[in-house]
């Protein structure tokens, strides 16, 4: 099992440490999972959505971390604006990184970070407040690693847990180029990521977690509009998600044992090719198997995502 020998999340070619990303990949399309997790590939041209969303998520995560360390809102904002300016700059070329999208530009990224802080950063007693653990530490940047079953560890990272009244929620931020409304928030139920957050939150905190509060940013050309939505999870829903996740992962592990590193034994799911703006491997899957390796060499680069490596 040479392709995954260097990954801590794999044991003899079978993934044993899982996260929401790898679970969604395998659930969407076994071939997609094979290309991304086993072959370790991603398109040479990085997705603008991943670039924009990644810098934005880091900025907000670091903002709350700076705040937890005692910085004022203005000091923390200055730090994350600087970080985002650097992260969106190509130091080798001496130019801003390419944001190949009419809405998700570098300017829009900085605008969105600053406007988010303006809208949501000040905590009030009657609004959302960062939850504090029993040792007094703020519940920010909580990594979790839970043993779901023998040979199945589920891990992830909670950016922040908040308190609204007496209830606890995990916080998450999303960006979209589309309109944010009830339809948008409904897409998070069911959702492996959100159910995993709520499930892990209640295990880590040893308290019920009602769900996930999502601060969604609609990125437009001239403005960013924010909407806050809640996706709730009941105890029964989380129990169902847990059982379903264990069963799904066991099925994927069985497929791994049977298919190994033989591409042809990882079935494609053509119904998933057009989801979320189109699968990044769609052009590859549409080629003849005989020439596919050439396209991998020309259009893809290594991407060794490993859920077992802490952030």
């Amino acid at each position, binding site marked *: 099992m040479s392709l995954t020998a260097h990954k801590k999340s794999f044991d003899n070619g079978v993934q044993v440490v899982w996260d929401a990303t790898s679970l969604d990949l395998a659930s969407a399309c076994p071939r997609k999972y094979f290309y991304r997790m086993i072959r370790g590939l991603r398109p040479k041209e990085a997705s603008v959505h991943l670039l924009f969303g990644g810098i934005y998520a880091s900025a907000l995560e670091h903002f709350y971390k700076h705040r937890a360390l005692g910085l004022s809102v*203005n000091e923390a*904002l*200055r730090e994350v*604006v*600087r970080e985002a*300016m*650097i992260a969106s*700059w190509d*130091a080798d070329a*001496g130019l*801003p990184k390419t944001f190949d999208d009419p809405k998700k*530009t*570098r*300017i*829009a990224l*900085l*605008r969105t970070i*600053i*406007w988010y802080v*303006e809208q949501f950063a000040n905590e009030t007693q009657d609004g959302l407040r960062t939850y504090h653990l029993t040792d007094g530490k703020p519940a920010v940047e909580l990594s979790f690693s839970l043993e779901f079953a023998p040979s199945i560890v589920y891990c992830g990272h909670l950016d922040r847990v908040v308190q609204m009244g007496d209830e606890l929620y995990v916080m998450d931020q999303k960006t979209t180029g589309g309109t944010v409304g009830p339809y948008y928030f409904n897409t998070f139920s069911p959702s492996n990521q959100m159910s995993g957050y709520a499930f892990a939150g209640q295990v880590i905190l040893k308290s019920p977690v009602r769900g996930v509060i999502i601060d969604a940013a609609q990125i*437009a*050309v*001239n*403005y960013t*509009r924010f909407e806050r939505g809640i996706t709730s999870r009941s105890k029964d829903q989380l129990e169902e998600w847990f059982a379903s996740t264990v069963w799904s992962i066991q099925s994927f592990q069985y497929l791994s044992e049977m298919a190994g590193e033989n591409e042809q034994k990882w079935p494609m799911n053509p119904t998933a090719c057009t989801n979320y703006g189109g699968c990044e491997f769609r052009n590859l899957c549409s080629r003849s198997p005989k020439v596919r390796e050439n396209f991998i060499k020309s259009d893809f680069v290594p991407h060794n995502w490993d859920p077992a490596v802490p952030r």
Partner: protein
Amino acid sequence: MSDDAPSDINELFSRDPMKLTDADIDKIIMEFRKRRNIFNSNPAAAAAKPMSKKLTAKESAVSSLKIELDL
């Protein structure tokens, strides 16, 4: 760079961010705060993307003539 950038921070966005001072960063923050206030005061108007004006044949001819005269 997008044309929605406040013109006086365009230059800051073109600079190596490692060399930006705290004052430069604060200037960026202030400019975007100002733009947010403008947006919030009239979201519909601020959100409207300015349309590029299509010149009439007469206006095109006049502007072409003006360019020739300037030359």
